């Protein structure tokens, strides 16, 4: 590593905790969310430097885009209520101040924890098992050439299977709260703006093409179902925000089926492969590439739909309810 690279790494490594600190102690919540989005951008750069372009891609989509939109949505939802209740307009700030004794009592154990962790991570023994070459061998046997995708869908596919399960569960939990949609607070001139409509018209095909490209690229280079799903999910979020999609997303049965599709296809492939080869998700010879691509395709669709549903928080209408 050159000296310039070392300085850049130092700057990035320093700015992450500083940004986290500033975001969490910012006076009002808008500022906190803006700093959170900036933190996401810096994080993506750090991962680029750490040789993890897959994660940089996912962070660029999820950290800076979707999580930021989620937080802004919630902050907006909270303060709208306050305007109606005629409370102080700066309500979303933290009104509970802790006395210095409490702060000190928290600082001491946190400092000890941080010191211990720092000592632990710096004195790690060298790895006993040579994971990269083990994975390399396993990947060489398989038909997917990008190691991270191979790990996700071949080598440790049950992790990914459970993960789409977690997404599904989160969507069900959010629906069970029975929240109403956050309504737009934008002035007429903004929400009906032809510029915004034109922007979405330009954005939609670009996002669909990028999503499909990332999905296709995932087998041989960084990219894959998560990144593609995140990009398409962001498109869903934008369409909900601009009113092109109703918050309940459409007919209840269709939405529910779409959410469950990724999980169901994964499960089906797992069970069928278990019947064929004896191991859960142990793909039979020769079908590996096709099966992984099929799983990835349905996963992308379900991840995108789930992210949109998590944003709207409104359960789909029952049959005949209309939209």
């Amino acid at each position, binding site marked *: 590593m050159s000296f310039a690279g070392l300085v850049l790494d*130092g700057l990035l490594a320093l700015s992450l905790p500083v940004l986290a600190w500033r975001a969490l102690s910012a006076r009002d919540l808008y500022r906190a969310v803006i700093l959170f989005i900036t933190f996401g951008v810096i994080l993506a750069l750090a991962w680029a430097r750490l040789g993890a372009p897959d994660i940089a891609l996912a962070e660029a989509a999820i950290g800076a885009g979707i999580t930021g939109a989620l937080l802004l949505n919630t902050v907006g939802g909270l303060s709208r209520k306050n305007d109606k209740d005629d409370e102080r307009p700066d309500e979303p700030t933290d009104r509970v101040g802790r006395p210095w004794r409490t702060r000190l009592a928290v600082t001491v154990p946190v400092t000890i924890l941080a010191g211990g962790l720092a000592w632990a991570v710096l004195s790690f023994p060298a790895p006993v098992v040579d994971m990269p070459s083990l994975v390399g061998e396993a990947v060489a046997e398989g038909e997917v050439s990008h190691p991270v995708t*191979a790990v*996700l869908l071949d080598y440790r596919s049950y992790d990914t299977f459970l993960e789409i399960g977690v997404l599904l569960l989160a969507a069900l939990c959010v629906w069970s709260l029975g929240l109403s949609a956050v309504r737009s607070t934008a002035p007429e001139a903004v929400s009906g703006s032809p510029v915004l409509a034109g922007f979405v018209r330009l954005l939609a095909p670009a996002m669909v093409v990028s999503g499909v490209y990332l999905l296709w690229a995932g087998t041989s280079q960084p990219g894959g179902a998560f990144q593609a799903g995140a990009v398409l999910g962001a498109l869903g979020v934008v369409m909900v925000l601009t009113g092109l999609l109703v918050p309940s997303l459409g007919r209840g049965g269709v939405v529910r089926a779409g959410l469950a599709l990724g999980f169901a296809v994964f499960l089906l492939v797992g069970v069928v492969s278990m019947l064929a080869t004896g191991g859960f998700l142990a793909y039979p010879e020769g079908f590996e590439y096709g099966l992984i691509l099929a799983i990835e395709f349905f996963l992308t669709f379900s991840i995108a739909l789930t992210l949109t549903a998590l944003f709207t928080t409104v359960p789909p209408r029952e049959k005949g309810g209309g939209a």
Partner: protein
Amino acid sequence: MSSVDMYLLSGVAVFAVCAYALVVHAHLIRKVIAINMMGSGVFVLLTAIARRGDETDPVPHAMVLTGIVVAVSATAFALAVVRKLHEATGHAYLPEEGEDAPPDGGGG
């Protein structure tokens, strides 16, 4: 100090800062942001660990990718719970010890 060491320490620092803020701040959205960033600190740590050898280890990368998606769904759920609490009680704080409503001013 190598680049990897700097990122390892950075991850630890992010984790510690967020752990402090998680306890000290009362507003629930701040707590949600703190937990999300705490996760990011752990992800930085994992990615830096993957970088220690001569070759980059893809297993932590896959774990972090899974983690990012789980983190966004957990954050979305937490924010929905905050909104529900706000709808029900009118404020986004948990009741402090020994009282039902949040205190108005700082200090105490």
